């Protein structure tokens, strides 16, 4: 099983350096694999260059897939975190 949710970025500068850094640092707290997808590209949320390379802008929708031991908890916390920070 895996957990999946979508999220729309509201930060005016999109998923740029600082928020991308926060996102990656957060993702690294979990055992689960976290995959962020946008516009046909999927990247590992624990890798900063991958996340920044998505080029996500304000108003873009991203899909997040969480899979692993702590996936339920990780997905819920990660979604909350994205809402608060991006």
């Amino acid at each position, binding site marked *: 099983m895996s957990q999946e949710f979508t999220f729309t970025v509201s930060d005016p500068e*999109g998923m740029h350096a600082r928020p991308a850094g926060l996102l990656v640092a957060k993702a690294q707290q979990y055992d689960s694999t976290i995959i962020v997808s946008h516009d046909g590209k999927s990247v590992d949320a624990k890798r900063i260059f991958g996340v920044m390379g998505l080029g996500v802008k304000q108003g873009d929708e991203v899909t997040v897939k969480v899979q692993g031991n702590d996936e339920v908890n990780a997905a819920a916390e990660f979604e909350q975190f994205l809402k608060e920070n991006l």
Partner: protein
Amino acid sequence: MPPPNSSSSSRRTCDENDTSVGVSAGIAIGAIRVLDTADHAVERRVVDDPQAEVERFRAARDAAVAQLKQLRDKTAAEFGEGKAELFDTHQLMLRDPDYVESIEDLIAQSKVNAEYAVNSTAEQFAAMFAAMDNSYMQARAADVKDVSHRVINVLEGKRGGVADEDGGESRIILAEDLAPSETVQLDRAKVLGFVTAKGSANSHTAILARTMGLPAIIGIGDAFDPADDGHAAVIDGTSGLVFVDPDEKTLAEYQGRKAKYEEHLRLLQELKGKPTETKSGQKVRLYANIGRPSDVAAVLANDAEGIGLFRSEFLYLESEDYPTEEFQFQAYKEVAQKMGDRLVVIRTLDIGADKQVGYFNLEHEANPALGYRAIRICLTRPEIFKVQLRALLRASVYGNIAIMLPMITSVQEVRDAKQILEEVKNELRGEHIDFNEHIQVGIMIETPASVIMADELAAEVDFFSIGTNDLTQYTLACDRQNPNLGRFADTHSPAVLRMIKMATEAAHRHGIWCGICGELGADLSLTDTFLEIGLDELSVSPTSVLPLRNAIRNH
């Protein structure tokens, strides 16, 4: 103000045709210090023991991460937590598995030295950012190079960052380019401002300069000359001008501007957050006029209480064809969101007269000011008007938007426009699209007819906003484009002032508010008059907000 003419003996290192851009406002006057930050070539060597070289890379990488941790703490202490987070991101970059694998694979497979592997990988990752269609992300190429150079410096046994070699006086920093880490490592007490040959408005140097309140200019390009080290200079972070060895005239002029700018900043500090209220307690809402979403930054910086006039023309003037609903929606939404609860009055299409747009195919007119313009176009071509109204209504849920109709001369025009607005609202309801059901609708008072009919008009709308430029033109029958009419086109004419008074009184009789969004609102010699008339709102250019607040508070 025009810059001093080119016959001055100052050496101007850039002019209007150049690419230089002021990215942080303010003026600095002082000696130049050139920083050597250019990219140095990295030597490619073949190594005998790739495994040992990988270990050497890992040790250098760990040392660089440790430096970044220190830099993070220094930045947090000096600039705040928000600015420091960038260096957390830099640490993540150095630990990124894709980045590390790329370097280690290069060392293992090509048997190259660690410096070369780091540099190649940095260039490859930087190229990825440079190729993105987003100026912000393009600027991140500099971040990749910055962190990579830190590792290379450790590998080469150099200390990281910029050496602070002169102990003494404060200088204007001149460099090929400045990485964010280099910017924060400078002793800020000894920096007067920044000038770089490269860089972008979104670079961290620009952002930090603004945080530090120091003037900064980027992109002077070929005008960068290391031989300027030690020379006197004047830099203007607003216009992007740099003068090396300024003559007395230039120096005196910029000393004057610097004093004026500092006075403005002092006023800002003193008046920010203070109510706009006279000594006897009469309150005026002090708003700002803007022409595009990016102007919101100046609105907030000058502490305006709302936006009294957002001219939507830029959407039409800067397009090749009719702007789409989505394009308009994004612009309105951006402004509404950034202003939060504060009112944003958006004026609907005001094309025609002196603002011509090709794709509208407007016929040539003998008297365009008396011709087919603004609301007249909207009412005869409702299909264009509806696109704008849909965008405005959709954006209305993101903040506090009001709609303002220009060039009104009759009650029927207002009713017709409101009828179209109702149709658009019904369409949106049918599509289950949310909008603010109670959105305020107001009109510009800029024709004598609208003043004469002000009572009837006030019964139809939520507010009046007086456009003093057109109201003067139409009241005094003076073409505002004609420079020979100066003494006749007197904006202080009792006829114009009486028009303003009549409109305001009619508004108050019907319980609606009345403001001014024309140039006259910022005329401090009329502030007393406007307070006596009882105007509820004044909307002026962002830089006029605080001087006006000052005048009102002293009334």
